[in-house]
């Protein structure tokens, strides 16, 4: 019995969401009174690998070979399943990232394990029942799921568990696994990464614009505000449907669900489908000229006013605030 965490890298680096998942997996290992092994796949340097020990990995497996350099869903799932078997891990933890969402179900089948995706809290053990709370109805609710299988796969929602330092000795081991040709049918042609922007699912602060901004030409101030705050930009469905912003920025029930520390909604009325995607944000700020906008009912802070007057004031205030600290 042990816990295995898959530490996904992006261009050789672990992101904050991975350290969250390692901390989460460490806490599960402590609950179960067992060890935590991390597995990294692809090109990651020694310093970066060692950083996993800082958050509680007792051992770090490094599966690096030319074939595994880039993410291939099928092949990566095989490597992680192999590692779980070799380590005798009965609980596998991943980040519920885009790649994690592809891996978790394959791992569930390979390991004959029940899968909880989008977990938001540590598992609870009550009277022999192993339960995990996850988001459901696109953020409108949570479901508490019991996993009844011996093996379990849990994918953790980014920004839902705090990073906890729990330093262990740095112990990295090579992990070699015989790869199966049929796992490599999908071929990567190209990775396109916009490196100058904060990625929306990982963002701690999100600045989001709606139809109240009147047109794509007015997004300059949204981007400026986001840049100053180190935030990602997002939008409502009508905005992406109109082609003002890309679909990847659409937050809501049929877009992406986010759980940042701070969500700033500008010129968004707050339709129920949009609220679903942002309800797990820790602090919500709403700026809307309509005092009756439903978004104010779920906001922590609000400004009733015209975005074109309010946003420049916010930008000026942040610049002033930054100059002071």
């Amino acid at each position, binding site marked *: 019995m042990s816990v295995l965490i898959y530490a996904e890298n992006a261009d050789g680096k672990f992101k904050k969401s991975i350290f969250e998942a390692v901390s989460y997996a460490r806490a599960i290992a402590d609950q179960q009174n067992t060890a935590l092994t991390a597995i990294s796949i692809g090109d990651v340097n020694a310093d970066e690998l060692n950083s996993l020990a800082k958050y509680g990995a007792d051992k770090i497996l490094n599966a690096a070979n030319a074939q595994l350099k880039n993410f291939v869903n099928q092949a990566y799932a095989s490597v992680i399943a192999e590692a779980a078997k070799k380590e005798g891990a009965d609980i596998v933890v991943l980040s519920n990232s885009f790649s994690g969402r592809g891996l978790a*179900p*394959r791992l*569930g*089948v390979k390991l004959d394990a029940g899968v909880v995706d989008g977990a938001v809290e540590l598992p609870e053990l009550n009277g022999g*029942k192993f339960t995990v709370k996850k988001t459901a109805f696109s953020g409108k609710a949570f479901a508490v799921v019991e996993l009844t299988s011996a093996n379990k796969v849990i994918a953790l929602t980014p920004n839902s568990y705090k990073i906890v330092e729990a330093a262990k000795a740095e112990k990295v081991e090579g992990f070699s696994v015989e790869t199966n040709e049929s796992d490599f049918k999908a071929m990567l042609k190209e990775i396109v990464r916009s490196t100058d922007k904060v990625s929306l699912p990982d963002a701690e*602060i999100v600045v989001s614009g709606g139809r109240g901004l009147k047109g794509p030409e007015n997004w300059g101030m949204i981007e400026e505000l986001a840049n100053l705050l180190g935030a990602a930009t997002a939008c409502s469905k009508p905005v992406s449907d109109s082609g003002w912003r890309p679909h990847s920025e659409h937050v809501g029930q049929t877009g992406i669900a986010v759980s940042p520390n701070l969500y700033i909604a500008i010129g968004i009325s707050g339709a129920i489908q949009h609220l679903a995607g942002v309800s797990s944000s820790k602090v919500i*700020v709403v700026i809307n000229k309509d005092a009756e906008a439903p978004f104010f009912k779920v906001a922590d802070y609000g400004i009733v006013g015209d975005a074109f007057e309010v946003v420049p004031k*916010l930008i000026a205030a942040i610049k002033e605030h930054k100059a002071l600290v």
Partner: protein
Amino acid sequence: MTILVCISNVPDTTTKITFTDNNTQFNTNGVQFILNPYDEIALARAVELTDGGKGTVTVINVGEANTEPTIRKALAIGATDAVRINAKPHDAWFVAYQIAQYVKANPFDLILTGRESIDYNGSKVAGMLGELLDLPSVSIIKKLELEGDKAVVEREIEGGKEILTIPFPFVAGTAEGVAEPKIPNMRGIMSARTKPLTVIEPVDVKTNSEIISYETPAPRGQVKLVAADDAGKLIDLLHTEAKVI
């Protein structure tokens, strides 16, 4: 080309979600059920790819008889035929297992699902099908084009995308960008009534997860309003009070 589109019957996006029986059951009273919006995108792309006699589109649903209006809608949008596996969709594993048994007997060139259903948001059926059928699977795609005997797909990643080529057959979960949902026309609605809908019985499978209760998000306190003229004060509050910047 033969395409299978896996569809779910889900509460309409405007539904206010409530629970009964001490928060153990989803309250379906007065809830309108619809074709899962992401599945609609998969279906629209499947219809485009096979348009003009270039193939067939089968939709498959694991559900009881009450899902038939949703299946008929999929037929009206342009699916060639439909299969309903007559069972409650217990969880993603149960659904994927049932569909995989069907596909083993009736292979397809391409299997599409929505990226997730908007009720349980699992995004698991595509990957489980891939594993059960030993096929490549791509979890969340934004684009799907044909290129000879392969497909070129764009997969969403944090802050960007990956472009992949995949030989058929494979499984993919579709998101916005793959196609615009299609609204059924009158001819589609008429023909949907007579298109074949086969009902088959489920096979036995051991389940491995159980929803034991539900919770709704904790209500937020009263909104604190800042005057528009004094908007800069908001930044102070976010810094000193909310401590988020």
